[in-house]
């Protein structure tokens, strides 16, 4: 594929999105199968209680260490969480790859625009949750 050809941008971006979605979907399917097999006949009532400021479920925490432990133990919720993380990462990857695609087209303005979008996005995802006063 010739990346200088403007047509290729649509093809590459389309593929990034498609593979991201398929990977995420496959992981969530795995988590859902574990969930239904292990807990399908349980009542939802015990699971859908919202505790502000606390993790939603027993045994689930949103930290990286907690997620890795859950994955190793084949915890349904951890696998679903991983699938959701891949889903969130999909549009972010699309923005990242677009920077290179615009660079291949030698479109400097859009390299700059897309790089700024990526910076804003990463700031918003990783930095804002830990700034006190951001979000009640």
């Amino acid at each position, binding site marked *: 594929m010739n990346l200088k050809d403007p047509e290729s941008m649509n093809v590459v971006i389309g593929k990034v999105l498609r593979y991201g*979605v398929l990977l995420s979907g496959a992981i969530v399917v795995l988590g*859902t199968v574990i*969930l239904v097999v292990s807990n399908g006949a349980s009542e939802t009532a015990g699971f859908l209680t919202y505790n502000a400021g606390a993790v939603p*479920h027993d045994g689930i925490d949103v930290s990286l260490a907690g997620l890795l432990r859950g994955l190793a133990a084949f915890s349904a919720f951890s696998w679903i969480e991983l699938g959701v993380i891949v889903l969130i990462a999909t549009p972010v990857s699309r923005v990242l790859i677009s920077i290179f695609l615009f660079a291949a087209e030698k479109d400097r303005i859009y390299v700059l625009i897309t790089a700024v979008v990526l910076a804003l996005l990463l700031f918003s995802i990783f930095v804002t949750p830990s700034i006190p006063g*951001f979000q009640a």
Partner: protein
Amino acid sequence: MFIVEFVLLMFFVSIFAGIFGSIVGLGGGIVVIPVLTILLGVDIHFAIGASIVAIIGTSSGAASTYVKDKVTNLRVGMFLELASASGAIIGAAVAAYTESAALEAIFGTILLISLVPMVIKIGEDIPKSPELRGLSRRLSLKGSYTETDGRVIDYNSTRPVEGLAGTVVAGVLSGLLGIGGGAFKVLSMDLAMKLPMKVSTTTSNFMIGVTAAASAGIYFARGDVDPLIAAPVALGILIGAAVGARILLRSRNTTVRKAFAVLLAIAAAEMILSAAGVLP
């Protein structure tokens, strides 16, 4: 309710949400949220967390088809993402100091008012293409796509600054409430930038995933994304979005506009009723 029933119910609801969300560029949250809160009595925080998952899923699931078929305008999308990503950060920063009922009342009313130009343009197929000049020209905010009947539609856009301003509002709304961004994006591209309707909804669809991803960090860190809800929503939405994308490519601009107007009215009503305390 048993977990297996809950999972199946949300799976089918989300297929439906994905179909509509991907066609009108709003992302499916406006279907998922009321089903969770009103029908199933789930806490609004979990519903918004699920809506974030629904929006990202609709966006990426349908965009892979739209981008390949070149209906989405990538440059318009990237340019406006500057505004929506900034808006999302502003929204997150001011959320602690604002009253969400007041915001919903204001934004719901704006959406309701914007129904008027939508309805006036209800029969419009392709807008008269404006002359490409100034910033729009420098940023090559123009494009071309093939219609269902084989016509190749070449179009230009206009008023990029107004488009940016409308999209900042969309981003702020997403950052504040986790919902509602798509409507302002479509309105900005349709009413200000004069893009063909299908270009507006599919480009909005392309962008809402990035805007929702920007807000996802906060919701995820707070534990608002409940895996039990996220799983059936993600799977249903991805299937629905794939179906919706195929439907849109075969639909006329006038049909898409009508569908958008109906869902815009529903979104406005949801916001106003929520502000009034009738809905959670």
